[in-house]
């Protein structure tokens, strides 16, 4: 049975094709649709079993990464997104998609409350592209992510505004209560380890200075998940360079498709 998965495209989106490739390899049926098509109703969010917001620079990341597309989601698609969440349709945001979900207030949510989490300038103060190791946090409350809980993924980051920042300790504690979905591991951490060595804030294993090595988070329901690194760029064996071990990103997409099925 086909599992239709929506990949929205806004001006400046650019990792939609790789995201679609990953979904296909994972057994899903991707549809890339421009925001204008979603607005006009020629493509409907409701017709899809899951949503994957891909990477890129929506609207050039003017006024802060993802902010403009986040505004469009809030002003044009709030009801449809709420309905999708209500129906437990999984939603995954990668890189710019993660930034959009955070800026829209969907992560960690709920939308409409004052935001206490953001993604901002890397601590190094510049765009950076490098491979990192991350672990799917075993204690994450996301149901669909549970299928891959504890696994490590080796994949690249490519961003300038990927630092997870929180307004206060209460928010940090709230995230640690099951909302952390991915964490950066120290380089060379073994995928089989029961006790992974986290990056401990050290550059470059934690490439952007994110609080508590957080690479991705989920919302209270666990339906919506976002992360900065690009697991869709490591779904084929030959994509992985030599260097530290770490698994493919494909199981993550397989979990998404399985949950959407």
């Amino acid at each position: 049975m086909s599992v239709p998965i929506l990949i929205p495209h806004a001006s400046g989106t650019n990792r939609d094709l790789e995201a679609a490739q990953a979904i296909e390899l994972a057994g899903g049926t991707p549809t890339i649709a421009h925001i204008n098509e979603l607005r006009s109703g020629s493509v409907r969010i409701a017709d899809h079993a899951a949503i994957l917001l891909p990477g890129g620079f929506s609207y050039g990341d003017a006024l802060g990464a993802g902010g403009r597309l986040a505004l469009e989601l809030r002003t044009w698609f709030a009801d449809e997104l709420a309905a999708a969440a209500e129906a437990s349709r999984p939603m995954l945001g990668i890189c710019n998609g993660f930034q959009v979900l955070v800026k829209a207030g969907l992560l960690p949510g709920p939308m409409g409350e004052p935001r206490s989490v953001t993604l901002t300038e890397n601590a190094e103060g510049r765009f950076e592209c490098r491979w990192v190791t991350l672990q799917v946090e075993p204690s994450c409350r996301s149901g669909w992510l549970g299928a891959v809980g504890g696994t490590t993924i080796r994949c690249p980051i490519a961003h300038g505004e990927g630092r997870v920042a929180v307004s206060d300790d209460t928010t940090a504690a709230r995230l640690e209560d099951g909302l952390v979905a991915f964490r950066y591991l120290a380089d060379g951490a073994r995928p089989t380890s029961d006790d992974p060595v986290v990056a401990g804030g050290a550059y470059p294993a934690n490439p952007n200075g994110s609080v508590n090595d957080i690479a991705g988070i989920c919302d209270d329901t666990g339906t919506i998940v976002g992360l900065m690194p690009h697991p869709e760029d490591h779904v084929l064996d030959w994509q992985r360079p030599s260097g530290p071990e770490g698994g493919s990103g494909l199981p993550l997409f397989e979990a998404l498709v399985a949950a959407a099925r």
Partner: protein
Amino acid sequence: MTVRIDVTAPDDPRGGSVVANARLVGVDGLTSCRVTRVHHVDGSLSPDELDRLCREVLIDPVVDEAVIDGVTPAQGRVVEVALMPGATDPDARELERAAANLGLPEIRVVTARRYDLIGDLSDTDVATLTRRLLANDTIEISTEGELPAEFAGAAAADVRVDDVPLAELSDDDLLRLSKDRVLSLDLTEMQAIQAHFAAEGRPPSDAELETLAQTWSEHCVHKTFRARITLTHTSSDGEVTVSFHDGLLPALREVTEELDPPWLRSAFVDDAGIVAFDDHHDVAFKVETHNHPSALEPFGGANTGVGGVVRDVIGVSARPIACTDVLCFGPADLPDDELPTGVLHPRRIRDGVVAGIGDYGNKLGLPTVNGSVLYDPGYVGNPLVYCGALGILPHGSHPTEPQVGDRIISLGGRVGRDGIHGATFSSAGMDASTVDHVGSAVQIGDPITEKGLIEVIERARDAKLYNAITDCGAGGFSSSVGEMGEDLGVEVDLSVVPLKYPGLQPWEIWISEAQERIVIAVPPAKLEALQALCDAWDVEVTDLGRFTGDQRLVVRHGDTGVVDMPMAFLHDGIPRQELVGAWADPAPVEVTTPVPTAAQVLQLLAHPNVASKEDIIRRYDHEVRGGTVVRPYVGPEADGPADAAVLKPLGTEGHKAVVLSNGICPSVGRHDPRAMALLAMDEAVRNLVAVGGDPDQVAVLDNFCWGDPTKPDRLGSLVRAVQGCTDGARAYRMPFISGKDSLFNEFDGEAIPGTLLISALGLVPDLRRAVDSAGMQIGDDLWLVGANEGALGGSLASDLFDLGATRVPTPLDDPLPRYRAIHAVICDGKVTAAHDCSEGGLAVAVSEMAIAARLGVSVVVPLDGLDPFTALVNEAPGRLVLSVAPEHRDAVGAFLGDHGRRIGEVTAGDDIVFHLLDPARGEDSNLEPIRIPLADAVSASTHGPSGPTRGATA
């Protein structure tokens, strides 16, 4: 009413980067810097609406502080910087659109940056920081204190087309007119125009004169490369040869036509060269230069350089899939008192150029995968920025024939006064006053608009909506429409062109090089489908006019005539130049070489041209599109330089991959420009073969950056370099498929070293067999392919250790057999790592492999009749180091035959060891070996000459 909104993120790391860079420009008193984003919002928003705009869009509640309708209280000395009115300002545009999203009344926005400089600063310090770090007065305005908001384009002006009387002008008057209007036309060209309009019995309009200047500019028509040239060549023993050259461009084309391999799809005729990839797809490749704009405004110059070359690839109906960049700067540590007036410091140029390339490529979603960075005092006044782009298209999908009646459709960006005279400006030398005259030629790009063009053109191509396509680049519409309509003739109405702001005169609209535009020829029946497609992707469509069939260029602005000329005069009326060149080979110099030491090898590794460029490379996304097989840096720590990039185009079947490499050696060209061309071609092939590329299917691009070709010494070396290119194309059976010349790279009459970039495009038959410089295993044999040669002219060692060598390495006569042998071994899966010998010779090649793999190595440096120093550091062509498991020793020996020999092994140790032989005593006589701890080599490569404490880069 205009309201000011200040937004600050107190922990914004850009403040720290200003402090770090302040020390580099000699301001030590700056202790901290707070960066504020300033927005001037003009409109009739109520306080509630303003608050909503700020909350929903402008202010991040987690990290930002804001002052709404007021000014941030000063925390120190305050400097404010804004773009000149009318420059591309995406933040302002997106804020305007966000207000519309929210259903607020229409607003107009301009933005600025504010710096609160805290510390013990004199007036001079503040002025220095402003000039050197914070603002660029080519495109920005700045002041100490608060900068008032300035909105672009006041009132619409009356449309004016002025005649430019030529009939009475003397030769001096003609030349003055050419200079005053930045036409860059010489006397014979001005006279040809004078004669044409005398015969017509009327003066040209301003737009007609400008059209001719654009179309006849060096940049657009390559007049030097089409000129008849007489070359006087004096050999080092005084023998004089005079030769006649009937056009350099025809010579390059001729060798391509002669080779004519079956996989060649299109060479020289279009915006980019095209070769076959597989049964279904072709790949298109182009490399451009953007030197003069980058000298004046490094970020914007490099930014629009990438944008321009990507449009070249779109202009052959290809989807861009990768970028390359090769950069030449003055020394980053140039003392301030050696910096000429009117020149930005090389460090600032480098940082701006790198940021500009990263910004555009990253935002387009294109991996920037191959390049190099050279530092040389010859580039202080005139840096070089080569930008390349690769694209993919279904075979046979690129239409090239407009039809009578087709509409002339412009897609993409709006037209402003920015980017006037880029083509003619780049066809003249620079000096300290250049900024005052041609600041308008420099622009900032808007990659998101270009991204829309990529999406729309790919779909329009697949739906067969257009009959012809071209990039709108240098010369603007005057060049793109003028070229597209060369055979048929066109009629255009400029009054329909969307402008960024009112007030442009017709000639300005016609020649503006405003970025992010593509022109296509569309049959009227397909306009509706095109419009629907462009609406869906938010791309603006303008119907400029039609192809007429009367072979005339007719331009109107509403009812006002602007241009009316025969295409024949525009395209064939330019007089062919007659030029003279002279070249004298340098006298040979007897070189005394030192005893080789570990310290020398570390110095070579730490030289800025060899040391790691990871700082730069990591600012480019080299992973997007998920097709990168061999990355710019490889190995367990991802810090070993790769020889070439291997890419698997997304959406293609099987395991075939593309390989991109380059060769550049301007130091050789100082002594022998012909050899430079041959050695650069060898370097490009070497690099390509090292990662698994097939030497029998390589296409190359030439990019010549030279000084003023009207000076015989510059032209002489250029002709010699072209001779090297044609000789090399035959020797390597490698056709040139496209190229570019950028001449007049001079500052105050001082030319850059003539610099030829060879960019190579090839194929890896099976990406699973691709190798890099890091894959070797403990116990592997190390093999050297090729022989050493004593000539050190142009080598890094000669430069670094002041040897003064002038004789350069001998180019290879018959290079293909060795490269085929290496390729066969790699395809057979026998090679674990490969790396070419270039700058620093075997010493650097072996050390870089050890660094990349983080393994020890031990090699015996073969003498080949030389002294040990020369054997270790010479840069003879055709050499690679391969690592091979010992069980394959016999098989590899059989493959390589006389081309290769075993020189050592990969060890479990922590040292790089070079065993040296005594020339007096022969092969079994060991001198004291050079032993370099791997950690020292890594440190030299990572931190460069001044060690780990070198200043921060930002």
